[in-house]
């Protein structure tokens, strides 16, 4: 489990997803702004539009900007992830200025990175690709930090290289990567293989970020294992104990 500590020079600013601040030192001023605070948004309409976009992506309408007002030396502000996982930095200036990521993957960024929404135009991918129709677009030339569940894995796909990914495990991708779906081969595998009916296929060139454990999967496992009522184990029980309620007494997880 990680967090990001950002060092701010006097006058420098960083922005964080609302609610992600972990700690900050003296002389750092926080200001919550409507929308994403990117430079393009001027005027009320622009701000409303930006905020509306953020609402669509499922994020808070507000972003908080942390500005160092110190006159001497550096100050630190830290951002923490909301659930167990891993944080990775992405330098937008190194990758062509644009990165497309999962709706809730954004954690914090240097001020000036703009957060936009990106609509998936392919119906099949929107429905079955695992990321839905709305993704988030990070644009600019600064550092952005993404967070996702499990461990994060970066793959640089060469031209023509194809990777099949379990749907939901994609965190983000460069816009040049071709993102599509593919039927899991064989009806038996499709129905009982546990991967669902479709894979997400990613075809290079470009780099992609994958997560090993989408939070929804972790949450459903925890939910399944949680005791339903006092004395009775959940379906997950003690590693699927056939003893049921009795098993939980023997297993000793009855509280």
């Amino acid at each position, binding site marked *: 489990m990680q967090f990001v500590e950002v060092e701010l020079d006097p006058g420098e600013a960083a922005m964080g997803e609302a609610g992600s601040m972990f700690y900050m030192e003296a002389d750092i001023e926080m200001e919550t702004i409507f929308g994403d605070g990117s430079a393009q948004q001027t005027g009320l309409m622009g701000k409303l539009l930006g905020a509306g976009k953020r609402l669509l992506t499922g994020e808070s309408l507000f972003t908080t900007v942390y500005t160092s007002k110190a006159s001497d030396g550096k100050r630190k502000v830290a951002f923490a992830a909301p659930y167990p996982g891993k944080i990775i930095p992405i330098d937008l200036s*190194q*990758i*062509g200025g*644009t990165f*497309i990521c999962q709706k809730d993957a954004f954690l914090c960024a240097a001020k000036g990175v703009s957060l936009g929404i*990106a*609509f*998936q*135009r*392919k*119906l*099949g*991918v929107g*429905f*079955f690709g695992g990321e839905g129709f709305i*993704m988030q677009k990070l644009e600019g030339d600064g550092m952005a930090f993404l967070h996702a569940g499990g461990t994060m894995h970066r793959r*640089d796909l*060469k*031209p*023509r290289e194809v990777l099949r990914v379990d749907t939901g495990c994609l965190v983000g*991708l*460069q*816009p*040049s*990567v*071709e*993102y*599509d*779906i*593919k*039927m899991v081969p064989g009806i038996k595998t499709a129905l009982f293989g546990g991967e669902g*009916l*479709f894979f997400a*296929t990613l*075809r*290079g*060139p*470009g*780099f992609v970020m994958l997560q090993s454990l989408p939070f929804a999967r972790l949450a459903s496992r925890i939910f399944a294992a949680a005791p339903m009522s006092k004395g009775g184990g959940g379906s997950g029980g003690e590693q699927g104990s056939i003893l049921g309620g009795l098993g939980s007494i023997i297993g000793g997880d009855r509280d």
Partner: protein
Amino acid sequence: MRFNAQIYGPGFPSVGAAIDVEATETGIRVQTNEVDDGTPRWGKITLAKSGWDGSQLRLEWTGSAGVYSLASGDALNNAAIVKLAAGKSTVRPSRPDRATRAWAHALIWFFIGVPVLLVGAIVWQHDRIIAWGVGLITVEHEAKLGEFLFTQQKTGLKLIEGDALAMVRDIGGKLTKDSRHKFQFFVAEDKTVNAFAMPGGYVVVHTGLLELAETPEEVAGVLAHEVQHIEQRHSLRSIAQSLSLSAVVSVFLGDMRGLASLGGDLLQLKFSRDHEIEADREGLKALVAAKINPVGMRDFFAKMAAQSQLNPGFLVTHPPSEERMNDIDRLSKALPATARQVTPLAYDYAAIKAAISRQR
């Protein structure tokens, strides 16, 4: 033309690099490490709509050092490039294979099309579905519901007995001879001109109504009307219409708790105009079948209309529309001669009315 793109391939970073591309009639020109690789002719290039959402154009070719790929995101540039390459480059379609598409379409249709169709069908066949749903409720069930509601209401009513009740019960008995419902008639002490029916066969007549009526036939007309509300299950139909589907299901399952809160509203339940007209028509038929003079119904409603300003009680739930009056008028005139062979109701109505006013 010149355009900006992100280039990938031998000698370039794995995340690509921004590059300036020149496109001509013969091919493209970019700066690569292997000098010869940077100037492919259109014939060597494969074009594809690509990118994460299909909005990018990908130009791919094989050089001596390996495969190169260009990604261009600008829609205007892309259109121009496609135009230049038209007929010369291979175009690779950017879409999943046939099996994947077939399954995806089938699933989209199943999960979106079918529910939409279902909702459409429900809206379209709304009346039939309600009639079908009401038909599923048995008479016994309705009686239970009525009993439950009536016990709730009874506390607020001042039920009286005597000759008036005997007459109402007698006439009611004639009107409901062959009914599948078990009817119960009551007279309540209340000077508003009103009568109401509750599901399961409960009919309550206010004394105010009895006082306004001049003949037993008029009372019979009102009773026939109210009885038909029950026979035609108007209240159940109205409930079904106003309730959500889940509540109807709970009635099927015999769970009355959800309906308890409705009890209060049910008394004031307004039947639709169609229901009123239906009750009039069927009531007329019932009067004829019971050999009661049907003119009483018309007379009483005419009286009601005349009294409307004075006594709005009955009118709130039974609006005397012109259409309805005309309807009753026309129907009672069109009755066959046999229908006029009626036995007058032999009650000493004057005495009954006198008894009511004495009781007060």
